[in-house]
């Protein structure tokens, strides 16, 4: 069953069309790596799926429920706030800059939404938060404020925070791009474990290692469009399109 079905998505900002006619289906349990040069619309596409941006054209289904259908910005579905929130909660988001709540401890960051959105009791939420933080290797940092955690630790708290809402799919927007190189491994390790546990994941990343090890498909975007979709071993060895070949060369030069 498809967890995400995005059909002919367009997203125009005032002057740029950031996403152009992108269609993508993510099946349950699938892990998809989205790669592409900076400014190719990867973040915008992800943000459209979890409602942080509003698409201009296209359809988005989450768990086969229609979340959004628009033509030229005009909406064809009008969900109640409750329905919209319920559907969007099937997606969990991890940001490049972590966006932890700095005035809350690691434990409180993870508990906040279960308590306030799902009305879980504080005791139950704390118990779940503790076990999630243990799972991401931070069982000894429950009471720490984000400012006292490294970037890698903060990002792992952010992953636990998103998981606490028990999403059907996890969206990651360059989760390791803001990290010092020596901290990347810990975060990727958590993500690979998550993939192995069967979580459906859509991951914007330039970490070829992660894509090779965990991804079922690589989606290559350029200038707002999906240019190529292939299994990682095929994509990284012999990309078909000239733009993907050029992108791979630039990545390999940097790496």
């Amino acid at each position, binding site marked *: 069953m498809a967890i995400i079905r995005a059909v002919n998505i367009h997203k125009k900002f005032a002057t740029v069309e950031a996403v152009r006619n992108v269609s993508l289906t993510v099946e349950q349990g699938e892990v998809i790596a989205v790669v592409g040069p900076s400014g190719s619309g990867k973040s915008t596409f992800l943000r459209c799926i979890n409602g942080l941006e509003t698409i201009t054209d296209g359809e988005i289904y989450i768990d086969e429920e229609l979340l959004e259908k628009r033509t030229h910005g005009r909406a064809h579905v009008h969900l109640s706030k409750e329905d919209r929130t319920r559907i969007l909660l099937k997606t969990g988001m991890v940001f490049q800059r972590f966006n932890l709540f*700095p005035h809350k401890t690691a434990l409180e960051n993870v508990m906040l939404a279960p308590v306030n959105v799902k009305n879980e009791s504080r005791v139950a939420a704390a118990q779940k938060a503790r076990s999630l933080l243990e799972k991401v290797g931070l069982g000894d940092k429950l009471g720490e404020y984000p400012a006292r955690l490294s970037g890698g630790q903060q990002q792992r708290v952010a992953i636990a925070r998103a998981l606490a809402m028990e999403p059907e799919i996890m969206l990651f927007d360059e989760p390791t791009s803001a990290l010092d190189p020596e901290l990347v491994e810990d975060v990727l390790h958590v993500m690979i474990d998550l993939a192995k546990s069967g979580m459906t994941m859509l991951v914007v990343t330039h970490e070829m290692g992660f894509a090779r090890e965990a991804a079922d498909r690589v989606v290559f975007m350029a200038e707002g469009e999906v240019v190529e979709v292939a299994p990682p071993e095929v994509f990284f060895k012999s990309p078909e399109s000239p733009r993907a070949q050029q992108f791979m060369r630039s990545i390999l030069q940097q790496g």
Partner: protein
Amino acid sequence: MEDALLRIAGWMPALLQATVITAKLTVISVSVALVLGFFLAIGKISSNPLISKPASAYVFLFRGTPLLIQLLFIYYVLPELFPVFDLKDPLMAAYVAFSLNVAAYLAEIIRAAIQSIDKGQMEAARSLGLTHGQAMRLVIIPQSYRRMIPPICNEFVMVLKDTSIVAIISLPDLAFKTSQIAATKSSQLVYLPAAAIYLVLTAGFTILFNWLEKKFSLYE
């Protein structure tokens, strides 16, 4: 010198009595203005123009006219137009004028502090399913407190000094009392202890706010 000290000591009871009025006027007006300013700030940020436009108009009106005129308006003009608004007591009129005026300035301070919070915070909160209101209440506003404390302290000290304009409605605050003593005792020496008292009050408020700022930065 000894004679001067003795004379100053003799004025102190009267000066301290006047200080109570100055301090009360400052603390009460700023406290009321904080509550009013908070709602004005939330109003200005609102996406509903029926709320944001009046809030903006209020702030524009009270920042765009002199406090002195606002005070005279409330004490003299308003009762003349509408007798029900006769506050009679000049201290009451001063409370009202200062509260309304300071609220406009604090609204801008509070709004700026709230809007300075990184927009990734709202996005993270919304992506976790919090409503806009919950995100403001639980995530954005608590983080803004620390950022508004220094400018609020600044405003506090400004208000403390601005209270001296209440002489115009014959309210015996510290500045008014001081000039009275200076005139009747024909000695300018009295300005020395008066300035010292203003400094002590300023120092007191500053220490209090520094403590508050530390308390709210525990997580940094």
